[in-house]
């Protein structure tokens, strides 16, 4: 009886986690009028053209490319400079090293909204408001704390002897880093890269404030705008297709790397 109860409870819970996601998936191929008309019913016809309209007319395709550009553009700069800083902070003792690391880690403590007004005005003064590269620069800066935090953890655990041996062979500090230490930290780079990528792909607050015009919007902002505009056109089919377009890449990436992601999520948490 007890086993049966806990199995029933687990089943009900699992279904309620999955139900909204599956409902969104089903609604994305429904005729728009059935999404609110008969929310529980299966689609009377499969309307895959919802995806076409979402991608084209609704502007989700453009937003997708913007998001891709922003995410990839951020990672290309963030990972090397984050790794460089983390390596020095992990392996080189110098005066102020601890304070500098603490300053980087402190960035994880406060919400973006604490600085949103000064940041908005700074970007305006630098004429980088409403530019994709402006958002990339901001994303790099705000992702550094977490990136440095994780990568310092990886570099600290690499044995010093490896770097020392390379330097005895005549490598300079920089060559030792690029040729020996960075390749060894690849698992760390992958994990932190995936984490950063998911966070950037999903980010809403900064993108909302820093990219006002429609042509530059990223996916989350585009989807949010679509919910407003569709109140008048009520093409709910395209909206739900858009929702699936936003979440599918993330869920696929997550499913591939879920073990690593779980470890990293818990790493900071359970040490207590």
């Amino acid at each position, binding site marked *: 009886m007890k086993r049966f109860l806990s199995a029933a*409870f*687990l089943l009900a819970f*699992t279904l309620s*986690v*999955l139900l*909204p996601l599956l*409902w*969104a998936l089903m609604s994305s191929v429904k005729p728009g009028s059935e999404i*609110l008309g*008969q929310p*529980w019913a299966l689609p009377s016809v499969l309307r895959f053209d919802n995806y076409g309209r979402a991608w084209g007319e609704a502007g989700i395709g453009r937003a997708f490319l913007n998001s891709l550009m922003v995410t990839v553009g951020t990672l290309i700069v963030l990972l090397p*400079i*984050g790794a*460089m*800083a983390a390596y*020095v902070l992990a*392996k080189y003792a110098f005066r102020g090293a601890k304070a500098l690391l603490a300053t*980087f880690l402190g960035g994880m403590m406060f*919400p973006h*909204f*604490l*600085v949103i*007004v*000064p*940041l908005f*005005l*700074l970007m305006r003064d630098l004429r980088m408001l409403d530019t994709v590269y402006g958002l990339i*620069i901001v994303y*790099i*800066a*705000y992702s*550094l*704390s977490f990136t440095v935090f994780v990568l310092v953890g990886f570099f600290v655990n690499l044995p*010093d002897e490896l*770097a*020392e041996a390379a*330097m005895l062979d005549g490598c*300079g*500090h*920089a060559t030792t*880093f690029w040729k020996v230490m960075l390749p060894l930290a690849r698992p760390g780079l992958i994990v932190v890269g995936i984490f950063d990528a998911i966070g950037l792909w*999903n*980010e*809403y607050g900064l993108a909302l404030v820093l990219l006002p015009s429609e042509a530059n919007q990223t996916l989350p*902002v585009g*989807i*949010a705008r679509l*919910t407003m505009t569709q109140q008048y056109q009520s093409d709910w089919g395209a909206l739900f297709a858009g929702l699936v377009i*936003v*979440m599918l890449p*993330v*869920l696929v990436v*997550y499913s591939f790397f*879920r073990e690593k*992601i*779980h470890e990293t999520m*818990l790493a900071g*948490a*359970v040490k*207590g």
Partner: protein
Amino acid sequence: MRGRGRTAFIISFLAPAVLFYAAFVLWPLVQAFQFSTFRWRGLSARMTPVGGDNYRQLWEDQAFATALKNNLLLLAEAGVVIIALALMVAHVVRGQGPVQKFLRSIYLFPQVVSMVVVAVMWQFIFNPQGLFNAGLRALGLDALTRTWLGESAWALPSVAVAFVWYAVGFYIMLFAAGLEGIPQEVNEAAELDGSKGWHRFCHITWHLLWSVKRVAVTYLVINVMNTFALVYLMTRGGPDRRSEVMLTYLYEQAFVNSNFGYATALAVGNFVVVMGLSLLILFLFRRNPVEARA
């Protein structure tokens, strides 16, 4: 690490990260505290230093008080449900079996999709013609159907439901790891003493989860106090500010009313609240009850 050119290497490797961080994180952070002491409306360059006026206004601002109260309500409502639910589910799916691991990873799905997706989805679920009301009607519970997001009594609890759905997976993982960390000997000893079920949970397990609970509560406070997208997209803080939270109010002041000085004071106010609550948690969880007894 030693060797020639050490100093030049350190500086050149730190420089890019430090420059980005100083210019776009630290500098705005310093400015935030500075701006909050100016009256500054609109996009004009006119800033009037007003000292603590913004903070006095904040202290008397009914809308901010409502937003703070709603944040705390959301924390209480969602927090209790999340912790209770996460503990129950974690109890069933703890361990390293493939099924358990697989289920725990499914529970994180809501956490990895964008908050925007979560908000839009739940907005439709709670739509008067949405999934939830349709489900109630199908069960013959027509009397319970509501305009969930449009009624002042139900808007905030509806947001809380969406928040629970979004957040609970992380806490399941956290508690599962915590339960896993309880030494086997403790469970065996409890078994011998005839302690099981509720009794064992209340007298043993609950106390041993001390450090995990502390992490969970801290994360909850930070997450709930910094809620923006969920409320902004589901209800816009309405009806009549009944689901307004601090950050949606801040957004309105900054980017609708262009009240930059006051909005920054709100941001600092929000930060102070979060820090205050975090310190309170540190104080409440200052001693590990298990270690104290040993």
